[in-house]
């Protein structure tokens, strides 16, 4: 019988072990390449067990090192963390298989370095998921930024260097200048770095300061990509597509919104937020980001750039759900972490497949190519439907709960925001399969997609349908985020 403590270790350490082993296996490329998928399977096995313990309401904590008095690195199982941990580790399996196809198909250089840092980034994301206190969260937040830098600048050309600089300056700058003092402020106010189910700040922090502290958190968490600190995400698209797919649609950005949700629920507490109205401005900011980036996305002809802006918009759904400060909205936000991850990773997989198969990056070049690669465009179609929120794709559930939450909180306008955004989503995503299948072909291109790319793409797109029928488990889990006693 393996204890939950050990499952936490298994889950977070297997990517780290993959990272360490990768350089030593650089001679044997087959072994090196398949370390990732194997690590992903072991890691998600642990994450599944952690999730079932979270469902049974077990409380597990694990302290790793005690740095100084009251300062330590430790992990624990929370419902929200269990959700995020499972998403990150499970999708890593497919992203890892996909990377093999992509890196080989594209004949990229420095593959060993790529795989090592890729696993390192997953490790950091999982540590964030199970972090037991704010400091651990912050530490691995930074580790995640630094481990993705070599991935973003993988090609080492001038554009990648420039993008890398923007990426680092926004993410490191915002987190060091705002997030760190915000965390220490909580430490000073409450006397500890711990978080708790219903927030720790009530009665400890003067309500007049609450919006200021919240603002420091919101703008300090650059990974959640709220306007005006969203620029790093489109810039990061110079990275190879497996990076954009797993990291900039799942691990990194979800780590951002996960941190945001944790701060809103476990540091402030939704009661405290609702009582003081500290998060009202955040509702409007998130709504604005949500709509504005959807509109920007329409005008982007570069496929990855369009997906990036769509990601920013979808992240704002999650922040918005947290800011509404009702239990239903929080639940919707947490579910959206899962549903958007499954949908968006599929879309990025397709974007990468088109690049490897035919060097297509622009949407306007897609005209009429649907017939030559029907499966890949079908996967894109299914993924898009999920993001738009059409049943029977899983994306419809989270939107449903978010709208219920908006109604619950009394901000009826927000329901309108969700509706408009759904229309915009449909507009900019449907254009791609529409062009592929219905437009006239302009030139002949032979799209050849490697199996290692095609299979994970089909699996994740199938996942968006499958999850629709198994949402109940996750719903049980997310309903515990706020009301567990």
């Amino acid at each position, binding site marked *: 019988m393996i204890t939950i403590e050990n499952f936490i270790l298994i889950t977070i350490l297997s990517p780290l072990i993959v990272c360490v082993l990768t350089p030593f296996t650089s001679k044997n490329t087959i072994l090196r390449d398949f370390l990732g998928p194997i690590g992903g399977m072991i890691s998600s096995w642990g994450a599944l067990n952690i999730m079932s313990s979270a469902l049974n309401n077990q409380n597990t904590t694990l302290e790793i090192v005690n740095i100084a008095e009251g300062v330590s690195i430790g992990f624990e199982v929370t419902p929200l963390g269990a959700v995020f941990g499972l998403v990150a580790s499970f999708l890593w399996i497919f992203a890892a298989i996909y990377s093999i196809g992509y890196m080989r198909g594209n004949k990229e250089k420095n593959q060993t370095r790529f795989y090592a840092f890729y696993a390192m980034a997953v490790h950091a994301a999982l540590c964030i998921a199970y972090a037991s206190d704010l400091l651990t969260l912050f530490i691995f937040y*930074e580790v995640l930024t630094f481990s993705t830098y070599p991935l973003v600048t993988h090609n080492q050309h001038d554009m990648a260097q420039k993008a890398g600089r923007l990426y680092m300056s926004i993410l490191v700058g915002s987190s*060091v200048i705002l997030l760190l003092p915000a965390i220490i402020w909580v430490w000073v106010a409450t006397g500890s770095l711990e978080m708790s189910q219903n927030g720790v700040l009530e009665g400890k922090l003067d309500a007049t300061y609450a919006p200021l502290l919240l603002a420091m958190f919101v703008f300090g968490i650059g990974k959640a990509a709220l306007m005006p600190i969203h620029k790093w995400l489109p810039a990061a698209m110079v990275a190879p597509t497996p990076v954009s797919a797993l990291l900039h649609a799942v691990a990194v950005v979800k780590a951002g919104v996960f941190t945001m949700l944790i701060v809103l629920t476990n540091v402030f507490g939704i009661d405290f937020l609702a009582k003081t109205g500290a998060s009202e401005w955040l509702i409007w900011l998130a709504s604005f980001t949500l709509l504005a980036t959807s509109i920007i996305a329409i005008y982007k002809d570069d496929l990855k750039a369009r997906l990036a802006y769509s990601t920013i918009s979808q992240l704002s759904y999650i922040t918005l759900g947290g800011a509404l400060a009702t239990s239903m909205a929080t639940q919707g936000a947490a579910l959206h972490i899962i549903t958007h991850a499954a949908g968006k990773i599929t879309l990025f997989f397709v974007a990468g497949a088109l690049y490897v198969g035919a060097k297509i990056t622009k949407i306007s070049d897609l005209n009429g190519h649907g017939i030559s690669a029907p499966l890949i465009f079908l996967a894109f179609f299914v993924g898009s439907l999920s993001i738009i929120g059409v049943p029977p794709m899983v994306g419809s559930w989270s939107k449903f709960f978010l709208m219920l939450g908006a109604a619950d909180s009394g901000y009826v306008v927000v329901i309108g925001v969700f509706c408009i955004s759904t229309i915009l989503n449909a507009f900019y995503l449907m254009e791609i399969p529409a062009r592929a299948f219905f437009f006239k072909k302009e030139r002949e291109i032979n799209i050849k997609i490697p199996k290692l790319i095609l299979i994970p793409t089909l699996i994740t797109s199938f996942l968006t349908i499958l999850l629709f029928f198994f949402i109940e488990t996750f719903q049980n889990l997310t309903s515990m985020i706020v009301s567990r006693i």
Partner: protein
Amino acid sequence: MIDILIKNLPIIVVLCPLMMSLFVVLIPNIFFSWALTTLSTFLTFLFSILLYQEIQIHSHISYALGKWMPPIGIEYIIDKVAIIPIIIISGISFLATIFAYKIMPEEIEKKSISKVYSLWLLAIAGLLGLVTTGDAFNLFVFLEISSLASVALVAMGAHQDKQALVAAYNYLIIGAVGATLYVIGVGLLYGVTGTLNMADLTNRIADQNNNRALIAGFGFMIVGIMVKAAVFPLHIWLPRAYAYAPSAVSVLLAATATKASLYILARILFSIFENSENLINNTLLFVILPLSLSAMFAGTIMAIYEKDIKRLLAHSSIAQIGYITLAFAIGTKASIAAGFIHMFNHAIIKGGLFIAITSIGFYIKKRITINNLSGLGREMPITFFCFVLCSLSLAGLPLTAGFISKLYLIKASISSDGIWLAILILISSALSVVYLWKIIEVMWMREGKNIVKKENPAIYISLIIITFLNIYFGLDASLVVNGSFEAADKLIGDPK
């Protein structure tokens, strides 16, 4: 035998390098003079560790030199405050000596090497004397010993670049002015109180409230020490001195020299003048605080625009000294503790960075400017990796020692209602990422010229040790943190 050793430890720590420096000068052989220096720095380090253990038991050791009882005779005082700079100085100088073995003969004429080692030990003895002495005038003597020895060491860089002579001359003149100011201050204090013993001074100053001569004396002393500690804007001697000194000397000076003076500054502010609260509070608020803030930004911005890497690191040192004095300026127990934490951490960070950069200089045999570094990251992976880790530590990123300093500094400033101070500190530390990243990017991204075939273990061994310390004290900081809090407690604890 052991008993006698333990009893006399406070003076042995100083005498060990002092006496050895006299022997080293007689040994013409390069290897043996180095070996003897290493031995003596190692012994000094060992004695400091013993002293540390003694302090854990007795918490305050007073040693009457030559059995002349204080306040008449010279008293040596070791307590929980003094032990921090003692450990820093003796530990870093040991590492720097190991590092010097290969580097020194490259940069200095063979025949003067033993003289350099002699000066080297003399400088270390001076610094340790500064910290251990409990006598205001004896402190001046050690101040001069360490300064003159360091000036001569800096001047040795002339074998490579004649600019070193100018740098040494600047250092000499400005340093002498600082020391003179200090001694004038001591004179005034002696005139008013009639004593030179620090503990005695503390008591007698209490009866002398608002004595103008006393205030003037205080001013002279503070300014004199601030010159030595390179507090902005009295830092102008430092960048050149660090940049043109021989590599090993840069390492030694950067990691240790200003630390001793900063310790003296804290002693004067919080211990000698602890009874003149008004005076100290005004000084902290209107002098030290604004100067520290300017240092933080001026140093960082100068570093961003600097092309010569050793100078860049020197400018960054000025900013880092700003953090330490800022911590003193806030004046709470937590902040002073943060100051001592950073004093320790900065020593291992800057030591590491200087070792990394100067060992690159060893291979490229040119002045180390940013353009000369292209692609070296891939040619010297070990040095580069250590450099990156030390840089992250300097920028205060998690899991490194620098993060611990920043954590406690920010916490101290937030708890004394200075959230804006905290933000300023963090902005300046985020800016420090700019100049560090500039270096890392050039070393990593640009194409190299294949200069370095293989890294020399004799050079990178000390780098690895010091980098390991940076990580270790980021993960298990309780030793440093507790030590610093005890020190702060001792300095301003339980007001009477």
